[in-house]
């Protein structure tokens, strides 16, 4: 009993009060691209990038492919790339994840979906399936429900059975050996239901886009409602994508 109280005392309150405003100090989050002109014929960033996330003339960066290795920062002779600690890296569409030059170049903001808000605004149950995830995404998705981020305060929780789930949260590049299990999980979910793609692997194949052992057919058949970028996404990125999608007021905690 006294030991328990000591734990309580040392622990205090750990939850982040305003999830939307919280900034993870030091986190390599949203990249920005300056408008400085590129040297003639330069493609140093394209060559440096391990995931073909960068296109040039004009320079654009696909958050759905980026693994935040910052090689582009180091190789660009003009210093066009920089990373901020902003963890909000999500969009409703694949194109919405493209970062362009200039201060306004970030991903498209997530518009609240009125239909989803009506259905799930007060309660959302999610089933997570990893299909080749490296455990980076899985650990961060788990963390969204820990005492710090505490997504459960909004009635949003992980469930064990797809039968109880409203949303399927996919991580990993979708391996061939998991293709069948992913479809079985989806088929077991009752309508209405939707898919969230979390992490560069799920969104684009990420570092594994060129691997032979993948079968990404499921994602072509069932498009995600929201893409949460990152490698892995910071829990704040995931949490806020959902709060915005469902139109949950940030101060409701």
């Amino acid at each position, binding site marked *: 009993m006294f030991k328990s109280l*000591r734990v309580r005392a040392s622990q205090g309150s750990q939850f982040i009060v305003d999830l939307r405003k919280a900034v*993870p100090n*030091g*986190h390599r989050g949203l990249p920005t691209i300056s408008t400085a002109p590129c040297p003639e014929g330069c493609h140093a960033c394209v060559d440096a990038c391990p995931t073909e996330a960068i296109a040039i003339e004009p320079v654009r960066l696909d958050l759905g492919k980026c*693994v935040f290795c910052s090689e582009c920062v180091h190789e660009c002779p003009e210093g066009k790339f920089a990373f901020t600690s902003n963890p909000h890296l999500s969009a409703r569409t694949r194109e919405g994840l493209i970062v362009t030059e200039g201060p306004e170049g970030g991903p498209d903001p997530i518009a609240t979906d009125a239909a989803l808000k009506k259905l799930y605004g007060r309660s959302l149950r999610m089933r997570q399936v990893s299909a080749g995830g490296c455990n*980076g995404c899985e*650990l961060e998705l788990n963390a969204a429900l820990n005492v710090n981020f505490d997504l459960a305060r909004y009635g949003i929780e*992980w469930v064990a059975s797809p039968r109880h789930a409203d949303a399927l949260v996919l991580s990993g590049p979708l391996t061939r050996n998991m293709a069948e299990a992913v479809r079985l999980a989806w088929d077991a979910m009752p309508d209405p239901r939707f898919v969230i793609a979390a992490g560069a692997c799920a969104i684009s194949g990420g570092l594994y886009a060129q691997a032979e052992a993948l079968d990404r057919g499921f994602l072509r058949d069932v498009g995600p409602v929201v893409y949460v970028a990152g490698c892995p996404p910071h829990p704040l990125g995931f949490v806020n994508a959902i709060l915005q999608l469902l139109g949950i007021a940030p101060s409701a905690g």
Partner: protein
Amino acid sequence: MSALAGACSVTLDARVASAIVPLDVRAWRADLLARLASGARIVTLYGRPAPSAHAGAAAVMVTAVVQLTDGRLEVTRAVMDAARGYHAMTADVTALHCFERELHEQHGVRVAGHPWLKPIRFEAGGRAARDAYPFYAIEGKEVHEVAVGPIHAGVIEPGAFRFMCLGEIVHHLEIHLGYQHRGVEPLLLRRDARKLAPLVETIAGDSSIAHTWAYCAAIEALTAGDERAPVGPEIEAARGVMLELERIAMHLAGLSGLAADVGFLQGASSYGRLRTTAINTSMRLCGSRFGRGALRPGGSGVRLDAEAGAGFSRAELRQNLALLVNDLAIIDDCFLSARTVQHRLKGAGRLTTAQATELGLVGPAARASGLTHDQRAFGAGVYAEHPVTVVSEPSGDCWARARMRIVEIGRSLAWIAGVLDGDPVWTPRRASTAAPLELVADRLVVSVVEGWRGEAVHCLETDAAGALLHYKVQDPSLRNWLGLAIAVRENEISDFPICNKSFDLSYCGNDL
């Protein structure tokens, strides 16, 4: 044959590849068995395609690496005709079972007389291959099977478990992996060898530092000419601190999971939030909660400042460590003295020292069964300057594996504090990767790092022109999964979750 590597914290062996004369298959088999019988420990055994003497026949170069008790690595090789193969050694040395299975799966080498030649990860893929596999089965009217997975109840990676039970008691557990197979190894040969760090960091995303350090040390040993400058003590120290932070964070994640699985929720939440402190410390040092970007061949992405400012200062780092030390003392006491924790963990999932030795377990799972190997004990560099005392627990049960992790967290915290006593300042520096890297030709490099789960082994071989010929990756999980299967025998099936969590193995690290 002399190893060419200089002093470094990683257990490393670099040799002229062509100078290792491949033995005749029989001689090689006898040689390896003799070495293992005389006290050496198997580190890895793997194949790669070799030029064939006969048209139409596939030849495979098989490399075995053993470690002597003083930490030195030794290599013995054979070239064999895949179809003819050789007679399995697993019946003599159980610890070889996974290597021989992998050799058969990856290169089609006939391993005659192997008692359990099941594919490691069903690389060829597809349901047909999996379903065709003859599962181990126990017959009898009272026996029933429980199949779990590949998708589990939590937010974790997939894998399938098949329990053969008599009532509540598990007679045998068959572990069926491969669902995570992404094809890491072929991808490692597709890019410039110096640009592989981001990929290596995701071989097992919870062991990024362990794998990336093994990779960096190997590439550094293969770097020629002007770029050969050995990484200085500053980078070594930063790498050591990142590795220990990874160990602390993942041990905390494991303890949090164990506490949740025995229904001790205060432990689950406290260890969980302390893990947040540990990974946020990594994030302050390198920009990523998983240490991504912290290690690069010949360089470092870790920043530690002398004074508080835009970055992360020594004082802040010390403050985080002090918080961990202080709060852990409180929650550890609470966890270890809780009756529910003791009742559930003590005696569950026991592996004796003899079993752990026979199975060739590595890492904390081995040390919790009384074994004492830990690569950090052999390190030169920062681990020589700041030695780690290897700890082990004799009882081999879930309780021992939990205590092991608590003790290792304490040692790692003390180790980092020791490094900080030297008042280090770390600045990120990276070699440009623009120009393709020239590797030293004709080398075989074996690089072993003691991560939180055990030894990550990377073997790189260059050809006569300096191109990367082969890259073999081995996560410690490969060797430990069978340990879990044996540990749950004669336990109640309801204790499986705690047994599983106490081993805390990687699915993607196994499946590659």
